[in-house]
């Protein structure tokens, strides 16, 4: 069986037509004055799913979560949770908890007090509260900080308290607005796996907002890429990366070379494109129905391009010559920027699989870049 990427777990209710969505946004629009923050958006999220919202700053991610939590009402459209229309239900009666972008810890309460807050509100028995708080503290590894106030904690510890406080009530849905924004890279990566673990163990549905695409790809079952209040694509991380629905998504996620061109020959399953780039003919596999002369873009990731000094055996298609313009060394891999003779740049990367290289490529070398027919994707939008 062929698939994009590797499986984390066998969980794909979105492919099952009989599966009922747990959270459903139906044509939701939210306007602030004459500004539209969320624009006629429809989205299904399934029970126990780890769902990530990805998008540039100001594209409406927080607004979407805040509507689900009940802090904003949709201007039009409706939001259903487990089949129930949420309109008019105040935040304190929704089985949804939120971890705030700013953490919003209560400064006058201890770590314990913060975590117990929601439980006390529910009228839980004292002994039960103590047990749950202890459990939560253990979960986020803050047992010895129970009596501290938030201002006596580090950024990472505060973030954990916020998480514990939001999880303590065992909400059906946990909304996390940039939960790891304040952490350094290493702690962030650790916490990502902790979050995934937690979500799996407690069997919750997570909706996470993030700026960081790597974070979204690591954690999420599915990713929604948003732009200006609309959803551009909803798919698994591997699909979003390997089969972006549009130029925008291809460009937004990861690195990509976008080559414009016109369809020369459209056959069944294959297409030949005359790229606008000097003398490059592209042959690519595609399942799209294209017509001759149609304007298209060919999207190809840098790691799927080969680079070398030798001219490929068949250089009549999918190969072009240029000059090595820039080299970015990242340790695990190197990205080469090749400048074609007409000035266009193509990025190609290669894995540094060995420690020592004989006669490495260097600045100003003449090089050839080439790729296979299934390495890239033909996009029409």
């Amino acid at each position, binding site marked *: 069986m062929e698939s994009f990427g590797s499986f984390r777990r066998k969980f794909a209710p979105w492919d099952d037509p009989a599966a009922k969505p747990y959270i459903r946004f139906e044509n939701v629009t939210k306007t602030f004055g004459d500004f539209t923050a969320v624009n006629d958006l429809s989205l299904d999220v399934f029970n126990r799913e780890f769902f990530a919202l990805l998008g540039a700053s100001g594209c409406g991610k927080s607004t979407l979560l805040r509507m689900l*939590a*009940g*802090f904003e009402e949709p201007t039009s459209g409706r939001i259903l949770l487990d089949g129930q229309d949420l309109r008019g239900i*105040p*935040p*304190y*009666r929704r089985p*949804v*908890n*939120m971890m*705030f972008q*700013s953490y*919003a*810890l*209560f*400064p*006058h309460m201890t770590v314990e007090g913060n975590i117990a*807050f*929601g439980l006390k*509100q*529910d009228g839980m028995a004292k002994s039960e509260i103590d047990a749950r708080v202890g459990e939560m503290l253990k979960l986020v590894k803050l047992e010895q900080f129970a009596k501290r*106030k938030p*201002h006596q904690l580090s950024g990472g510890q505060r973030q954990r308290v916020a998480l514990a*406080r*939001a999880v303590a*009530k065992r909400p059906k849905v946990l909304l996390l607005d940039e939960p790891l924004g304040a952490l350094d890279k290493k702690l962030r990566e650790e916490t990502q796996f902790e979050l995934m673990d937690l979500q799996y163990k407690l069997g919750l549905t997570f909706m996470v907002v993030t700026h960081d695409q790597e974070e979204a790809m690591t954690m999420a079952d599915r990713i929604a890429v948003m732009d200006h209040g609309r959803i551009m694509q909803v798919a698994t991380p591997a699909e979003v990366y390997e089969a972006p629905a549009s130029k925008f998504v291809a460009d937004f996620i990861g690195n990509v070379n976008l080559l414009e061109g016109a369809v020369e020959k459209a056959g069944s399953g294959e297409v030949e494109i005359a790229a606008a780039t000097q003398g490059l003919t592209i042959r690519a596999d595609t399942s799209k129905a294209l017509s001759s002369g149609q304007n298209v873009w060919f999207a190809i990731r840098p790691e799927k391009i080969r680079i070398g000094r030798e001219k490929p055996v068949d250089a009549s298609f999918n190969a072009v010559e240029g000059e090595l313009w820039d080299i970015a060394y990242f340790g695990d891999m190197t990205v080469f920027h090749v400048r074609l003779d007409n000035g266009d740049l193509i990025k190609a990367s290669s894995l540094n699989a060995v420690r020592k290289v004989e006669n490495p490529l260097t600045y100003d070398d003449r090089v050839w870049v080439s790729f296979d027919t299934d390495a890239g994707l033909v996009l029409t939008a």
Partner: protein
Amino acid sequence: MQKLITAIAGRLVIVVPYLWLLLFFLVPFFIVLKISFSEVAMAIPAYQPAFDLSQGLAANFEKLKKLSLDNYQWLLDDALYFKAYVSSLTIAAVSTVLTLLVGYPLAYGMARAPSTLRPTLLMLVILPFWTSFLIRVYAWIGILKPEGLLNQFLMWAHVIDTPLTILNTNTAVFIGIVYSYLPFMVLPIYASLEKMDYSLIEAAQDLGCPSFTAFWKITFPLSIPGVVAGCFLVFIPAVGEFVIPDLLGGSQTLMIGKTLWSEFFSNRDWPVSSAVAVVLLVILIVPIVLFQRAQARAQESGK
């Protein structure tokens, strides 16, 4: 050289205010203290100096031995003074509570108003300071007197048939103090409410609190530093208030400021009135120290 100048300038900036305090607070205080140990005299000034530097050290030492605590004894012997102190503290305390009850909702409303409106609201709170305090208190006489604006309005609205007696009662004093000191209550509470992060309220609601509970569990506790500051800023000056009880209060309104005034001007008993003032200061030192502590603590936890 440049460094030296800035260093000296830096010192000066610190020294000048302290000099100011020394000159205009401590020195007068010691003069009052000195007078309070002296004996009354029918002269100008109206007291027998307890000591006089022009007479040489030995003579002064003699006088020092004669320093009397008589005036303080006098305060203890006459129940009037004790009653006046207690009554002052009570009136100040009641007024402080009333000011808080009026000021808190006002400050809350201001802090929750749209941010474009807030500077205007703040201006309106400070606006009364632009006219003289005395004139504003006089204006209240016009409002509260039997044939004043308030009674006219109430009678016109058929709420009452006979004019209410408000002027020259303690009620009028409370109204006067609440009105005059309201900004001192509103401003610190507003400051503490305004800097509060609204997402805390949202977080509380998210965790199951209706708005009213969220107010008592989150907003109010976080505004306590402002409440404490406001209460002290009203209470401390209200204890020694003279103008308001004198103009709005009646003959039964007993406040230490009035007592002090009559000792000083009517009885021309400078030593006793000085003793009254010194005791008042000592009484007020307790809340002042408490206030300083609370401020320091608020600063500590605000970090």
